[in-house]
């Protein structure tokens, strides 16, 4: 039994080390949403319009609305970052030493995923702390209730990152992931505008956003930040996590998945 914890500890320590050794990465992860909050949201402060959307009980300024979306952005980038590190590990051969471990592959991948999410959650709390000084102040209880939502959303987005990493052979391709995964996922979601606002301009965009797993991760975080549970968002996020993670485990299985019959994988 201790072997499991040693394996997990090793993976988690590597993830934490990677994080603490690269302070600029922590800063970058923090600066990105802050730029959105301070600059982008400033220009849109008053545009949100008449409708009050749950979980809000009254009119909110745009920077209040966009904050849960930016929490989601941190988790999304963290998920993609861990996908990047998987590709990097594969290129440098570090993954080989991980995958020769006697523990099942799902456990190794899950440990890596969990460790990455814990780091991402810390980043979100640092962001929320700064947002508090920017007068984005959800109820105190919200900081507690948002934790499980952040973990679930982070796991889902991290699993998506791992799934994508299984298909990427080279580090250079990561820019492509940025373009084709992060940006569409972020913009076609409820992170920046409520869904009813999109429906006014384009029903198609609304439907795409409603089908976007990132929308449900953001809504889960948004409700949790105000001490409420959005059951639909929670169920969809959980379902996506299971699907993405199962697919990842399948893809990383040398006997199956994409690696079968290919040379030079790991």
């Amino acid at each position, binding site marked *: 039994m201790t072997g499991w914890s040693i394996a997990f500890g090793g993976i988690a320590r590597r993830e934490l080390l990677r994080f603490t050794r690269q302070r600029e990465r922590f800063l970058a992860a923090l600066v990105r949403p802050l730029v959105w909050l301070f600059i982008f949201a400033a220009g849109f*402060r*008053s545009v949100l319009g*008449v409708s*009050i959307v749950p979980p809000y009980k*009254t*009119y909110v300024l745009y920077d209040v609305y966009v904050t849960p979306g930016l929490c989601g952005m941190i988790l999304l980038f963290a998920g993609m970052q861990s996908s990047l590190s998987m590709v990097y590990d594969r290129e440098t051969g570090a993954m080989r030493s991980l995958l020769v471990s006697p523990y099942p592959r799902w456990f190794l991948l899950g440990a890596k995923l969990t460790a990455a999410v814990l780091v991402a959650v810390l980043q979100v709390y640092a962001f929320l702390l700064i947002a508090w000084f920017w007068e984005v102040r959800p109820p105190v209880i919200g900081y507690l209730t948002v934790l499980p939502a952040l973990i679930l959303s982070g796991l889902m987005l991290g699993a998506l990152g791992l799934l994508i990493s299984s298909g990427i052979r080279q580090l250079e391709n990561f820019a492509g992931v940025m373009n084709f995964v992060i940006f569409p996922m972020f913009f076609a979601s409820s992170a920046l505008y409520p869904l009813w606002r999109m429906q006014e301009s384009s029903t198609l965009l609304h439907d795409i956003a409603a089908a976007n797993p990132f929308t449900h991760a953001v809504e889960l975080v948004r409700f949790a930040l105000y001490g409420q549970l959005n059951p639909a968002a929670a169920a969809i996020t959980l379902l996506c996590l299971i699907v993405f993670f199962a697919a990842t485990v399948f893809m990383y299985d040398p006997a199956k998945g994409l690696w079968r019959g290919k040379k030079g994988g790991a």
Partner: protein
Amino acid sequence: MRNLALIALALTAQPALADRIFVTNERGNSISVLDGDSLEVIHTIDGLQRPRGITASHDGKVIYVCASDDNLVRVYDAATFEELPSLPSGPDPELFVLDPVGDRLFIANEDDNLVTVVDVNTRQVLAEVPVGVEPEGMGVSPDGKIVVNTSETTNMAHMIDTTTYEIVGNILVDGRPRYAEYTPDGQTLFVSAEIGGTVSVIDVPSQTVTHKITFDVPGLLPEALQPVGMRITEDGTKLYVALGPANRVAVIDVASDEVTDYLLVGQRVWQMAFSPDGSRLYTANGNSNDVSVIDTATDTVTESVQVGQQPWGLVVVPTP
């Protein structure tokens, strides 16, 4: 057993507000009655034409409403919502104020350039005081000796002696004055000017404007900042000013005459009212058809709830 039940009741009982909020819906031609705890509409009074100004008797048992197109002050029982005999008001009553004793209503007649004084007990018109063009805002000094009327087109605050019904002073303020509010000590008078975009601070003994409070909300055009309704806290430390189409309520520190905060509420916020314990301030938001609730301890907007069409003003009384 009964004692146990009482103790359980005492332990579980919240410091209930148990208020009722009466909101005039100018275009809905109705009054929405809300429960102060649940903030749900528990009753709607219909059959008035263009209700605007609303106030309550000092015991909270009777509700008075300026029914502008009925040319009457309509009167309702706050407990049963039944209509009581109306009061004469003169033509097109817009806003009124009840004197501190609770006997006389001072009513602004927007079309006739008059302030009509009505005895609420005998239902007789006691006097008609000619004032400036388009009278609207009404305020009464805490000692009840002076009633202030603001005239929208003359841009003046007229001081009316409440015993002789004579104008004893005129103070020029900025464009389209809407509302007048005294500090509880009666030494300072605030007059909001909708087009001028200012609140004039008037020293009452000398009848001079000592300062003009201006407003600035980043990202909003200056013409959107239109001060309308005002309410001062019972201790006289904070003045709340509704900024109309700016969708904000400004919080002013009375000691320094500085704006300390802008609170986001519904669209075209017009008049406001405190709960009887002063812990909440309710705003009537005309264009978004809702009422916003402000927690006055933290100065945060906690909730907004839908009422009828184009809410104009409101009054809060303890639930009987």
